[in-house]
Structures are given as C-alpha cells and as structure tokens.
C-alpha cells in the first residue's frame, strides 16, 4: 500500500511565518508522490493545532506525518501523543526543525525558504521508511540487593524495604554498621556514633522484609535491570544465629589469640569472637583460619562452653539464590596502608598510628575502653596529626580527612587538656556549612596548625617521635609522643572482585565509576546497578547516606511492585542472520547491553539495558544491527533528500 503522507508546516505565529515562505513550501510539496496532503498551520502546538493534526490524520487516513516546526526537543512528545490519540503509531511522525535551525538563523527570507524546503524534503524522503515501534514493558522484580552494611547500605535498606518489596543485605563481615559503628563520636554533630546508628541497625535486623546475610559475599549476578538473579555465598559461621543468645561464654575458653582487625590490630581476639562489644548481630563467628579445630587439633572448648548448643563445626558455606530488580553497591572504603609511605615510620615506630587506630583507642568499646594511651601505657603529652598522607601519591583529595582529624584533635583537647596538639597540613579542606567553625574552634582551643605541604618525616627520638617538616635547609623538628596519620581513603579490597562479577567499571582510582559525576553520581553505567557511599568515592557519613537515598529513590520510582517496567523504545536490534559474531559491538557498548548467544554465536541486545546510542550500529561492518528510529535506510533517505 502506498503511504499517505501528511505534511504540516507550522508558522509558529510570526516566528516561522515571517521568515520562511511557508505557503510556497506547502504548494511545492503537494505534488510529490505519496504526499496526500500538505497544509500550513499558525501554531501546531496549540490545543487548536493539535486537534487540527488529529482530525487531519483521521480525515485524510494518513499513514505518515511530517511536521516542520520548531526543534523536536520542544513539542515532539506532545505531537507524538496527538498522533497516538488519532490512532497513528507515534513513531510514524517525522519532525523537522525549521525554526531554531532555519528561520531564526537565516535573515534572508529566500535563503531561509530554500533551506526549509531542503529540510522538509529530507523529512518527506525519510517518512515512508519510518516504522511503527511498540513501547515494550517487561515484568520486573521489585526486590533489591544491597551489598555492604555500612551507613549507606543501611539507608538504602530502610528506604527500600516497604510493602511488597524485599531487600537482601549482604555484608562480608560478621556484623553490620560498617566503619561508623566503630567510631566514638562523629562530626559535625559530635554525637555518639553507636547510639546514632543503633536504631537503624536494630530496624534492619528486625524488619520483616529485610533479609540480612552477614559473613557473606555476592558470588554471581546474572541478568539485567529488573531481572537479576544473584548468588550469595553465606560463609559458615559455625555458630547458629537462631540458637545463640550472645552471652559470650564461648570466648573465654578459646585457647587461640590473634590480632583483632576490628580494633585495627590494637587488641587481641579469640578464634571465636564478635568483632567488638556491641557489634550486631550479636552472634560470634569462628575464624576458620585460626581455629585449632580447623587446623586438625582436637579442641571443642567453645562448643563445650556454649550453654545453648549453638556451635556446630559441621556448618557449611551455603549458596543462596535470590531474584532482584536492582543492585545497590555500598561496599565502603578503607584507609591507605601508610606502610607504603616509609617517611611516616608507620609499622616501624611505636606510637605512629592511623586515625582509625586513634578512633578505636578513643572508643568506649575499643581496646582501652576509651583511654588514649601510648604503647607504654602512659597518656601522650603531645600528639601530631599529619594530614594528607598519600594524597600526592593517590592524586586525589579524600575530602574527609581534614575534618575527621580536626574532630579527633578536638576530642583529644577535651580528653587530654594539657597535651600539646599539632596539625601538619597541606591545605585545609573544610567545606560544608558546619565544618569551618570546628576548625576555628580547635584553633581557639590551642591546637597548633603547621603548614608542612607534605614534607613531614617521622623518626624515633629518644623514646619520643621527631616530626621533621619543611625543606631540608629550613626544616624544623617538633618532638611528640604520638603521631596520628590521616591516610587517603581508598576503596575496600573486595571492590575489584565485585566489579568483575557485575562487569561494572571502576575509575582510575579504583572506585566504582558513576554514570555521570554531576547528574547521576549514584548510578553506574549498568542500568539498575547503583554505587553509593565511599565505594563510589571518599565520603563522610552524611554524603554517603544522601547518595544512598538518591539511589533508593531511583529504584522506588522505577521498580514498583506489581507494575511493569517501560523500556526505551528506540533500541538496537541484531539481525542474527547477518551477524558474523565478531563481538565488536559487545566491546563498544557502554551499557554492557549486548551479549553473545553462545549457541548461535551471534550478538543479542538486551532491550532493558540498551539506551539507543547507536555506537554498535555504526561499528557493525555487516550492517547486522539496526537502531530503531535511526535505521540506515532512514538516514540514507534523509541524506539523499539533502545532498542532491
């Protein structure tokens, strides 16, 4: 059947009408084969104009519509809806822009008319090749996987866990709460961190539609946005979460003592342990690598001590499968190991500690019950804080170290009123509305700030520590009892593995790469996979929580329980008969939307992931990929319309 094309040229009042001879164009195209009718209208986007368009489509039984008007970015959607209301598939309308890109930039009316005519001709040439596109919807899972149980992960869990939606929280350590649970006070409110997050932890653990997997890891993810299938490895805990009441009777008899990583190596723990007092869930775990029984010795000390029979050495790893629609990564961060920077003496000199170690010394649930002590058990009389440890090497400012060091200096000032406190800094980074005042306050409290610009070197000095700063000739030395390093924030060690499992990209610094630094800082390029908190870049608690909330909002708006998900209509499609299976498209796709059908050896586009950029289409030498609404034939027809 020959197409019946209706051509409508909008005058846009005087905007086009005065600059382009609209009637001449209308007259000119009328005779073209396929053009059933051509008319002008004073303002197509008006209510009147849209009604006119609808009645034309119906009355003239049009199969294609060409609209020459303003930029499609203004009213294309509106006009498409009008087509749809008139029973025409909205993708059978071709718009061409004769206002912004013609009438408004061409003062000479004759020339503007010529150019407008070329544009209209190109559109008419293209119109018969347009194809109807059906908007697809797919069934989706509204449930969500959250990886990482720090503050960001907790926020995501609580925002998402509502009626009709389950959230699965996977945390690699035996307890949830992340780093913040191990701080005594947090800035800028200087409130008790465990008190602040305890209600959240309780809620997450108790809420019916949140399933928490501690001591667990994500092992595999398959599928895509809306329909992921994930495998979670719940590592054997050897202590039943159901039977254990958390009395702690098992710790004492355990004959093994190892360094406690949750106290940054400042204390010892047993092979059966909870990371720190108050850790939740309050269920111990047996550290298989250090337990005597797992080294082949006959030891049942903990099992015998447990009054509830909660310990089972036969416990096995379990692999649990769950279906989810989205994945929120919140795996947090860690601090650079300052051993890599020998000038600070960390790991070699006593009393050179990281900020995290000082946090633990300061914590009531820490190794000293909150007493800040030197290795010899005495209180320090002077402390030097060294900022920007590793900033130069990492080539980024972590943004939170100044403020947490200032916080620690403030706490030390209160705790050790007579101690001399120094801060060696390069640049003070205290943005945000509350931070500057803390800096001013510690300066007032007599904390001495010394600009050392990364020149600090720490050496042993007769039982004390010599902090040398400045260049060689003008270098000065300050003698202190304790040095507290503020090392760069880096992604936690498991990020590489997780990125591999998810096939999501990381930036030059190893953090998860956001889709857009400003507009989509919480999303990754993989649709339905979000990265929030410090795994996306160094962040303080407030920022991590805000980012988690943003990602959760995105999930809430797109994955609604019981509702289908509308897909991008203009996607790429592979003709498997033409596909040579060279995988070029797979390499190029920024959204990992193309996979290889192993049976057929050809490429397949996942319509839930494709965003229709067309990178793959132009790269395919066989012409096996088509971009809907931007097909080769359509574009060539447009070229022919223009280029004669």
């Amino acid at each position, binding site marked *: 059947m020959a197409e019946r094309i209706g051509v409508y040229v909008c005058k846009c009042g005087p905007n086009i009408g005065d600059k382009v001879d609209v009637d001449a164009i209308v007259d000119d195209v009328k005779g073209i084969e396929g053009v059933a009718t051509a008319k002008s209208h004073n303002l197509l986007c008006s209510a009147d104009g849209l009604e006119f368009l609808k009645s034309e489509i119906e009355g003239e039984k049009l199969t294609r519509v060409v609209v020459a008007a303003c930029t499609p970015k203004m009213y294309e959607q509106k006009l498409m809806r009008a087509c749809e209301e008139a029973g025409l598939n909205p993708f059978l309308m071709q718009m061409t822009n004769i206002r912004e890109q013609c009438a408004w930039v061409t003062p000479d009316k004759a020339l503007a008319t010529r150019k407008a005519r*070329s544009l209209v001709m190109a559109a008419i040439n293209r119109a018969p090749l347009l194809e109807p596109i059906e908007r697809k919807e797919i069934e989706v899972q509204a449930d969500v996987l959250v990886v990482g149980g720090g503050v960001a992960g907790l926020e995501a869990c609580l925002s998402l866990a509502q009626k009709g939606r389950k959230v699965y929280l996977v945390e690699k350590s035996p307890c949830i709460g992340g780093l913040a649970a191990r701080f005594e006070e947090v800035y800028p409110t200087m409130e008790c961190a465990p008190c602040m997050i305890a209600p959240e932890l309780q809620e997450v653990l108790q809420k019916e539609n949140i399933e928490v997997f501690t001591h667990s890891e994500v092992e595999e993810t398959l599928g895509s946005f809306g329909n992921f299938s994930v495998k979670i490895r719940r590592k054997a805990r050897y202590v039943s979460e159901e039977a254990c009441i958390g009395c702690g009777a098992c710790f004492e008899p355990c004959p093994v003592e190892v360094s406690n990583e949750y106290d940054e190596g400042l204390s010892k723990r047993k092979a059966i342990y909870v990371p720190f007092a108050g850790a939740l869930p309050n269920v111990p775990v047996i550290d298989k690598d250090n337990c005597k029984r797992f080294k082949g010795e006959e030891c049942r000390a903990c099992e015998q001590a447990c009054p509830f029979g909660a310990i089972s050495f036969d416990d096995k790893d379990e692999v649990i499968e769950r279906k989810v629609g989205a994945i929120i990564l919140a795996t947090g961060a860690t601090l650079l190991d300052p051993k890599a920077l020998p000038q600070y003496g960390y790991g070699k000199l006593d009393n050179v500690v990281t900020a995290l170690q000082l946090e633990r010394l300061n914590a009531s649930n820490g190794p000293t019950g909150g007493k800040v002590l030197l290795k010899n058990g005495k209180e320090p009389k002077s402390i030097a804080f060294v900022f920007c440890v590793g900033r130069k090497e990492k080539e980024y400012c972590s943004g939170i170290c100044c403020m947490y060091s200032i916080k620690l200096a403030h706490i030390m000032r209160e705790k050790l009123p007579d101690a001399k406190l120094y801060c060696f800094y390069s640049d003070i980074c205290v943005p945000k509305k509350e931070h500057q005042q803390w800096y001013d306050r510690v300066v007032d409290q007599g904390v001495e700030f010394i600009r050392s610009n990364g020149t600090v070197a720490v050496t042993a000095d007769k039982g004390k520590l010599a902090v040398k700063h400045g260049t060689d000739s003008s270098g000065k030395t300050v003698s202190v009892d304790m040095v507290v390093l503020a090392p760069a924030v880096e992604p936690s060690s498991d990020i590489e593995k997780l990125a591999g499992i998810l096939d999501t990209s990381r930036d030059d610094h190893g953090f998860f790469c956001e889709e857009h630094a400003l507009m989509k800082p919480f999303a990754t390029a993989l649709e339905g996979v979000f990265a929030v908190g410090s795994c996306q870049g160094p962040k303080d608690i407030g920022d991590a929580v805000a980012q988690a909330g943003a990602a959760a909002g995105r999930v809430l708006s797109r994955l609604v329980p019981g509702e289908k998900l509308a897909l991008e209509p203009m996607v790429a499609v592979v003709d498997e008969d033409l596909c040579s299976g060279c995988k070029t498209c797979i390499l190029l796709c920024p959204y990992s939307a193309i996979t290889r059908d192993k049976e057929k050896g050809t490429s397949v586009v996942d319509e839930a992931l494709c965003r229709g950029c067309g990178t793959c289409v132009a790269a395919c030498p066989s012409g096996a990929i088509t971009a809907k609404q931007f097909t080769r034939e359509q574009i060539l027809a447009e070229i022919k319309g223009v280029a004669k």
Partner: protein
Amino acid sequence: MADDGAARQLDKEILSPKPGIQSPAEGGGDFQPRIVGFLCNWCSYAGADLAGVTRLKMPPSMVAIRVMCSSRVDPLFVLKAFLAGADGVLVAGCHPGDCHYQTGNYYTRRRFALTLKVLEELGLEANRVRLSWVSASEGGRFAEVVTEFTETIRKAGPNPAKTEVFL
C-alpha cells in the same frame, strides 16, 4: 518498497524545483555549498537550537540530520553523502569526556581519524569532512563552525563527485 515512487518523484522535484524556490546549489551564480550535518541529539543539536534561540546568523548551507550520538554516524554515511554530491559533511557531537552515552564520541573520534586518513590518502579532499565538538551551551561555537566550514567548502568549490559521471 512502497516508497520508491515517492522518492523517485521527490528526486525529480529537487532537481527541477518549481519557480520561486531555488535549490541551494544555484544561488544566482554564486556557489552555495550544500552540507550534510550529523548532529548528536544531546549536545550539538541542542547547540544548534541555541544558536537559533539567540538569533545568531549563519549561512543556510547546512541541513541537519539528527542522530542520538555522534557514534551513530557510520563513516559509510559520510561516503554516501559525498558520492551523492554533498559538498561537505559535518559530524558534530559532545566534547570528548562529555558524551551522553559515556564513551560514544571517543569511538567517533577514532573512526573519523581513520575516515579522514583514508579520504586524505585517496586525494578526496578530506577538508570536506569535518568532525567538531559542540556542546549544548555553545550556540555561538555552532554558528562559527558552520560559517567557517561553509567558507572552507566555498573555497574548495563544488564536490568533484558531482561532475564525475562513471563512479
């Protein structure tokens, strides 16, 4: 193909326009270049719109073909336009690093480095093909690019493919 008739008819129409409307190729003796412009939807098409919104002036030589990303532009489109007689082909996209689709324009850049090299080596006046980065805020730059490129083409003269008969 249902459209053949229409297209055929159209070709005739364009080649023998009715009185009152001249085709851009015959602007009263002066050579009026005809440029096909592939503009990415997010940056360059928006930049072209902005040029209009701010009422900048530019030669009416370039007719835009909208694509979602500059990486949709198959170098064969450029070749086709060129062989069909376009005096110039402009491809414009987001600045490197700003691609709406993350990495599309990086591939565009490599593809066009290749395309331009082939055209250059074949003596096909590679200066008739231009790749430009124009952001959505660069209305002024868009007008400049079109003006400059039109001037380049005007100096180069009509596309020799138009006069070569047996291609």
